């Protein structure tokens, strides 16, 4: 495989994983906190912070190439229970995102085919993804690159056209008075980039972890910063603020304003492009993580069941079932923003843990093999690791309405993760199946 093709694959994979249907939902949510150019400020700052995280993730990936990162990095650096807790929070995030993505797909489908019930659309898209994964089907790399490039370029062009054609006047309160709300908006905007770290599992060769993967993550983030900024500016110039925040699929009125009656069809086409990358790769990656956890003795054995095609059918079905149940709850009570914000807050904690893992492993395993070292100074790593949980918490209480609901929701999921952690830890201790981390890659290369 040519180097440039490899880099392009990683960049488009990382950008595509992060760019889902729920990205538009979060852009609408961001407009609930700040408006106009401040949305773009929040997106850019969140992208910069995620690039700092990406640099630390790249160092961890160079220590443990191709491993299921969230479990391996945190297990190597922290106590087993801390690692398990964060892994469960990450899995909860994946289930919540799958539910939100499916619901957003259903809403866009409903804009084109109003007769299709949302529940049927949600169950249909999740069922389709499960079947694809059980059959072991996979998009060819070239097609994955083409679909993601098409998605990103379309979004940039449509954003630029919206900016050029828009005539909305600036709002009355879009000055510096909104600056104080930016931190909460950054916490929410982090959601727009989650998924870039999945690149680290895909390394094609050992030296991919020296330069190509460390470079591809910030490039993927930068690509999405430009795309999100274009469309956010487009929304601002073309749509009244009330129309942006009126629903969770602002792309539908936006494309309609741009293209007339054909707008919803374009929105649906873009949904399919987005779902190709985010949804399918997410279920596949999540099911592989569940499989690995089962092999470790952390999850029940049936989660590790494989079929004759070599697909991790136990993990796929478990994740698909949980996603379908979560989607039904989201559809019934319209909890899409709440689910996305809670998931984003959890990932803020996981990202902070990645930063701390780099700092800790540099002290406890200074001689360990690292083909890439982050250039981010340690004081900045500490600062970002401290800031991310605060950003996540601030985004939890940033939405209009009762603040207690997202807090109670996050606490409920955290309690569930804590119970699962306790159960899994007891399982591994009892069976003695958990293999302690053994630094066989310890000697300097």
């Amino acid at each position: 495989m040519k180097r440039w093709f490899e880099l392009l694959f990683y960049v488009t994979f990382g950008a595509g994983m992060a760019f889902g249907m729920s990205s538009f939902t979060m852009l609408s949510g961001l407009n609930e906190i700040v408006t106009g150019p401040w949305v773009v400020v929040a997106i850019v700052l969140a992208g910069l912070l995620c690039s700092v995280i990406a640099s630390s993730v790249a160092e961890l990936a160079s220590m443990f190439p191709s491993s299921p990162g969230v479990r391996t990095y945190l297990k190597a650096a922290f106590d087993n229970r801390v690692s398990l807790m964060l892994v469960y929070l990450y899995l909860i995030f994946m289930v919540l995102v799958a539910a939100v993505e499916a619901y957003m797909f259903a809403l866009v489908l409903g804009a084109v085919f109003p007769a299709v019930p949302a529940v049927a659309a949600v169950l249909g898209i999740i069922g389709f993804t499960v079947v694809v994964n059980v059959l072991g089907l996979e998009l060819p790399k070239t097609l994955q690159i083409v679909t993601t490039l098409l998605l990103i370029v379309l979004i940039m062009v449509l954003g630029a056209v919206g900016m050029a054609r828009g005539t909305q006047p600036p709002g009355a309160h879009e000055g510096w008075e909104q600056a104080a709300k930016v931190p909460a908006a950054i916490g929410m905007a982090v959601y727009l980039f989650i998924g870039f770290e999945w690149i680290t599992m895909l390394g094609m060769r050992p030296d991919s972890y020296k330069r190509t993967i460390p470079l591809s993550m910030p490039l993927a983030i930068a690509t999405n910063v430009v795309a999100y900024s274009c469309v956010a500016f487009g929304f601002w110039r073309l749509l009244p603020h009330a129309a942006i925040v009126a629903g969770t699929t602002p792309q539908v009125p936006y494309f309609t304003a741009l293209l007339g009656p054909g707008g919803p069809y374009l929105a649906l086409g873009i949904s399919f492009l987005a779902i190709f990358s985010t949804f399918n790769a997410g279920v596949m990656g999540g099911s592989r993580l569940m499989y690995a956890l089962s092999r470790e003795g952390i999850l029940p054995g049936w989660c590790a069941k494989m079929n004759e095609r070599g697909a991790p059918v136990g993990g796929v079905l478990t994740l698909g079932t949980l996603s379908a149940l979560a989607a039904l709850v989201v559809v019934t009570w319209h909890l899409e923003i709440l689910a996305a914000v809670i998931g984003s807050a959890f990932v803020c904690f996981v990202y902070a843990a990645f930063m701390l893992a780099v700092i800790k492993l540099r002290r406890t395993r200074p001689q360990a093999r690292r083909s890439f070292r982050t250039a981010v100074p340690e004081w900045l790593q500490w600062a970002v690791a401290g800031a991310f949980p605060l950003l996540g918490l601030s985004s939890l209480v940033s939405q209009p309405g009762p603040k207690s609901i997202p807090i109670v929701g996050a606490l409920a999921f955290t309690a569930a993760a804590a119970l699962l952690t306790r159960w899994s830890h007891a399982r591994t201790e009892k069976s003695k199946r958990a293999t302690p981390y053994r630094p066989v890659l310890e000697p300097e290369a």
Partner: protein
Amino acid sequence: MIEAATATLEECLTDFRDRFNDNARVKKLIVGWNRDILVEPLDAPTAYTMVIADLELTSVAAGIDGGHDGQVHMQADEEILKRIFTGEYNPAEALIDGNMAVFSEERDKVKLEAIAMVIWGL
């Protein structure tokens, strides 16, 4: 029964080849799956290439030529590789423990783990 503690890596790989070729369920798993498996110990000089073609693991030979399509490149300490190829250590656990790296398509990693499960009943 070969043991990781006493056998060489080449002996472990040769034994694995025999078990691989004698297993009917493995053949079902690898229909249309032709790959070069590169086995590279990080703390020993000799790496090996195993060739899977037409439902057979046809050869185990010293030397590797990495960086090509259709390859599965495994890197680990020699002791870890021996334990993996004698069924003492599940490759999925080795990956999650950070004790092994596999450079390949995601599906190929799953396929390898599936083969290990079938051969060793892990």
